[in-house]
């Protein structure tokens, strides 16, 4: 190797690195993200008897009370049966909640490595956000079987499914990055998170369709809750057989990108102090 071609690394006190440098270092370390993701999947299922079945068991289990107690209130004439549309949203929600929860804990869980080696600190967080994509794939496999039985309608909107999954991943990453860094700083995050995620489920269009929000309020709702746009999309393409509502989706993604930009800034500010914190 030509010695002059070696990359020069400059380490300076405290100041956060630029978003651009963070992005470049993260891209160079994409194998690290992959290694973390593969690892977390292995560890998660190594000692679990049901293995990856958990991925489909959770949305199915939640569907039972939803369908039993809410179907008669929510079912609307002309729409797909409640169970089909609730299951569609539950599959998206299952991914979102485990991506955010695992992502927020990623740095503290990797304390062992964070204290002793350097790697882009985003890597374990993003890996935790990406790893459950395997589960969402299994969940969609479940829906391919259960959906038609529950009365789901087929439509060309299905081709947008990968986009909707990507949108959910962006929403998850935008929240997981700042939460992971704050979790290293304050253990309150760990206590608050399960409760906040539960609250988030109730204010997201999972148990009920987005039409329960008034027409005028709907756009504001999609801005306020970045999960609303993609989850509504899941319901539309999987259960109703229509196309996602791009306005609502755009509103949610705008919020996710703003939150993600600010969150990543906070993350970069805290990153250099992490080895002393976790």
């Amino acid at each position, binding site marked *: 190797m030509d010695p002059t071609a070696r990359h020069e690394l*400059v380490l300076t006190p405290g100041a956060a690195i630029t978003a651009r440098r963070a992005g470049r270092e993260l891209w160079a370390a994409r194998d690290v993200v992959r290694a973390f993701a593969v690892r977390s999947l292995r*560890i998660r299922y190594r000692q679990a008897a049901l293995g990856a079945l958990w991925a489909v068991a959770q949305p199915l289990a939640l569907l039972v009370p939803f369908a039993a107690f809410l179907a008669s209130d929510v079912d609307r004439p002309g729409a797909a049966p409640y169970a089909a549309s609730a299951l569609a949203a539950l599959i998206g929600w299952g991914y979102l909640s485990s991506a955010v929860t695992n992502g927020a804990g990623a740095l503290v869980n990797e304390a*062992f490595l964070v204290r002793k080696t*350097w790697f882009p600190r985003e890597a374990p967080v993003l890996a935790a956000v990406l790893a459950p994509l395997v589960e969402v794939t299994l969940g969609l496999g479940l829906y391919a079987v259960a959906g038609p039985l529950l009365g789901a309608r087929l439509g060309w909107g299905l081709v947008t499914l990968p986009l909707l999954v990507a949108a959910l991943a962006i929403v998850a990453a935008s929240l997981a990055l700042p939460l992971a860094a704050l979790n290293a700083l304050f253990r309150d995050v760990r206590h608050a998170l399960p409760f906040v995620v539960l609250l988030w489920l109730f204010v997201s269009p999972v148990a009920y369709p987005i039409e329960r929000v008034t027409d005028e309020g709907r756009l504001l709702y999609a801005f306020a809750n970045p999960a609303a746009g993609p989850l509504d999309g899941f319901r539309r393409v999987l259960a109703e057989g229509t196309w996602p509502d791009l306005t609502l989706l755009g509103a949610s993604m705008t919020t996710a990108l703003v939150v993600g930009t600010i969150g990543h800034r906070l993350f970069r500010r805290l990153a250099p102090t992490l080895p002393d914190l976790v």
Partner: protein
Amino acid sequence: MWALRFEAVGKTYRVGGAGYRSLREDLSARWRRRSPASTDRRPLRRRVALDDVSFEVDEGEAFAVVGPNGAGKSTALRIAARVTAPSAGVVRVRGRVGALIEVGAGIHPELSGRENIWLYGAILGLTRPEIRRRFDSIVAFAELESALDVPVKRYSSGMQLRLGFAIAAGVEPDVLVVDEALAVGDARFQVRCLERMADLVRSGTTLLYVSHDLASVEAVCRRAALLVDGRLHATGDVASTLGAYLAWVESSGDVAGGSTAAVTDLAGRTNPVLAPGDGLVVRLSLPPDRGAATSVALGIRDGHPWNLLGALGTVPPGREPVVARCHIDSLPLSGGVYQVWASVDGTEGDGGWRQLGAFRVEEPDRPARPLWLPPVALTHRWEWDDR
């Protein structure tokens, strides 16, 4: 061309402030400090680990950082490995850094040895084909073929060390950073590690090495820096830096309870440089306020926490000496750096051993002792027959 540069580097830790906190504790601590009625006006205490440290390591050079415990050696290495950021100054590194900061650094306990090689290889910046190519030699070096699929948490600390070192050295980094972790390994593995480090240096790797085993520092490194209390006391070739270290040890030589000590050669020179077979005089004051001493034990060490050679002096009944002097006529030691330790009225175990001073043995025909050669030399004579 340098590979690693410290430019006026400082590092300060917040004492008591760092660590896992809860928001409430943080807010209430801030409130206490602000409120006028509060008597708790403790400022955030800070501990200076490094202060204005500058040095440069050339490409392909083996460089050691030596100094007493708590001098900031490990902090310097952690900064070079990018694990922690400096609080002042700039550190520049050229190329990929492989680091073994302590036993188990970079090793995840829940993963198997095999998974750890993939993960740590990726962390060190290797692509998957590059890891695949080095995989077998890493496993062979670590001698873990049979335990490759066992989670590392079930490894002994020696096995963890072998794996960590094998990965850090096996990825052929441009800059290899090794902290004193090696002391955990068995003697044979230590020698293999040192040989491996020497090999890497020969093939162009830059080495930054910290160890209390001054013999290995001398065998592997050509230049060194002496850190004391976070400040740079000396930099230069290994011999002169170790000389400065010995002079420092001598000047701070202090046994329990304010007693003093001196280690000199037979002519009375302190900080002596001896030839093999030369003698040594150790003088040690015994403060009367600790009661009459009954015995004094001396030990000579080469950086490991055990004595290579020893001498036990028993105070004759009825005497109450205030100074003990031990004359050693001849030392059967090979070239290297040695410390003199003593224990007054020592109990069994490691009770009360303190370092008194240090000295150096130089062999005129051999600049550094080869790694395989133990420090204690046989009194011997070779004969060669041509027929």
